[in-house]
């Protein structure tokens, strides 16, 4: 066990943990003030719920002994056998427990991201049921396929350093399923859904950027040159994406906005996630530049296609994640990470094909399962709050609370 590596991974786990409350602020500021607590609660409670799910069964299902490439076993159920001794496949220089807790934070934030799609109208009880069942039936298998030893997408050679497919495409696609099943907010088309507190949103975005260093650099699972490389690539992509979104918006609509800057930064962070441990700093510039612009356009798409993805999970995490996975197939270089592969621009076009397959499989599996899950839960307990509750707001109707008492 290497104490430097362990310290780094624990710190990274703490940084990623902070991203979930950071997300709750990012989302919270964008909803109307009658829904801010409901929105924050959805992300915040997931820290509790998924932690429990993860330590009881999620970790084992994701990273346990492989079964047919599809799912991990139950050998580590209730963290049985997960202790201080490093696992040679998952962080060979850090305690297995450290790897487990690091991954726990990823399992937490992924379902939290989805909540942006159904903001302002989902029943809290249905939300809890959906989150837990999604974690078990969608996240754990997908995590195993991409990151588990023996996982079939892993075996195919797909590159996903810190979660482009596992976290972002999966949450983005689920968001699409959720927006489709739950339907539009009341007053869609005539109501101005203005963010009630953009300073809160920007604070959230800043915490996400900060935490993302743990998300990407920590995925090196060691305090190594690879961690440094991932850290640098992450920061560059986010910075450039913020600029590209803002400048595109400025040209397109006449004014640069703070929401655009924050959204662009997040889009860049999403885009660099799968490639962060495989690409050079200058590649990160391009990945960020395209990511910011692409996600800006992606966000405009939802109005044209007519679905109410309230907080743009599809446009930023879905589309950003897809670009991230594809860009990894373009820009990956074994000079940055010898354990990776070369991408198209480094003489290996086949990697791009592999990335496409991984993306496609993820989209199909996640959408289908999320859609079915949501339909079932809707039938059993109903997904959406009652009309008068949507009007009075989630804070009062779901939690008997008011956020701001002046």
């Amino acid at each position, binding site marked *: 066990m290497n104490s430097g590596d362990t310290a780094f991974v624990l710190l990274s786990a703490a940084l990623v943990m902070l991203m979930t409350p950071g997300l709750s602020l990012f989302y919270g500021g*964008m909803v109307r003030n009658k829904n801010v607590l409901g929105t924050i609660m959805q992300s915040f409670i997931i820290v509790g719920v998924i932690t429990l799910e993860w330590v009881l069964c999620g970790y084992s299902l994701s990273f346990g002994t492989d079964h047919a490439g599809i799912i991990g076993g139950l050998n580590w159920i209730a963290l049985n056998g997960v202790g201080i001794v490093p696992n040679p496949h998952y962080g060979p220089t850090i305690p297995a427990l450290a790897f487990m807790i690091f991954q726990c934070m990823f399992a937490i934030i992924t379902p939290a991201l989805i909540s942006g799609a159904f903001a302002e109208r989902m029943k809290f009880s249905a939300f809890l049921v959906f989150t837990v069942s999604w974690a078990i039936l969608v996240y754990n298998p997908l995590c195993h396929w991409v990151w588990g030893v023996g996982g079939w997408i892993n075996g195919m050679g797909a590159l996903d350093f810190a979660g482009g497919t596992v976290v972002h495409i999966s949450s983005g696609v689920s968001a699409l399923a959720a927006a489709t099943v739950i339907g539009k907010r009341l007053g869609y088309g005539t109501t101005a*859904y203005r963010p009630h507190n953009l300073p809160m949103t920007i604070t959230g975005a800043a915490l996400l950027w900060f935490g993302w260093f743990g998300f990407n650099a920590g995925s090196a699972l060691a305090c190594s040159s690879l961690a440094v490389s991932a850290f640098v690539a992450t920061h560059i992509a986010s910075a450039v994406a913020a600029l590209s979104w803002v400048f595109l918006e400025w040209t397109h609509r006449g004014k640069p906005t703070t929401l655009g800057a924050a959204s662009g930064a997040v889009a860049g962070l999403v885009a660099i996630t799968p490639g962060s441990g495989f690409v050079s700093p200058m590649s990160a510039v391009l990945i960020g530049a395209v990511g910011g612009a692409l996600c800006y356009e992606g966000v405009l798409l939802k109005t044209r296609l007519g679905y109410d993805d309230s907080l743009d999970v599809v446009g930023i995490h879905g589309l950003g994640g897809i670009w991230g996975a594809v860009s990894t197939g373009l820009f990956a270089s074994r000079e940055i990470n010898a354990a990776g592969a070369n991408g198209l621009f480094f003489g290996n076009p086949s990697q791009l094909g592999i990335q496409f397959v991984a993306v496609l499989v993820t989209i199909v599996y996640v959408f289908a399962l999320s859609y079915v899950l949501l339909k079932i839960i809707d039938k059993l307990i109903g997904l959406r709050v009652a009309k008068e509750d949507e009007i009075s707001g989630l804070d009062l109707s779901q939690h008997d609370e008011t956020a701001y008492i002046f």
Partner: protein
Amino acid sequence: MKKIEAIIKPFKLDDVKEGLTNLGVHGLTVSEVKGFGRQRGHKEVYRGAEYQIDFVPKIKIEVVMPSSLVPDAIKIIQEQAHTGEIGDGKIFVLPLEEAVRIRTGESGDDAL
């Protein structure tokens, strides 16, 4: 006694308050309101979604005074609140039935 309700641009509040105080008006009530007349609102853009916001923030002043002061008060308010731009506001004069000072129980002009 009459009650004057004046809708004015928020940044004009101090000028109007000064003017009324100099006139001998002893107190007034102010609330933050939203409204529109001929002044169009503004547009806001959030991630490409453009919203036209019709309502404009205004200040509403409510002040009660002896009927004799009303013509001068109207003149003062209009002078101080004026900018010449659309959205300067309106002054309304309402008849008032009764006024009572809570501390002492005085009524009528003595309550003002």
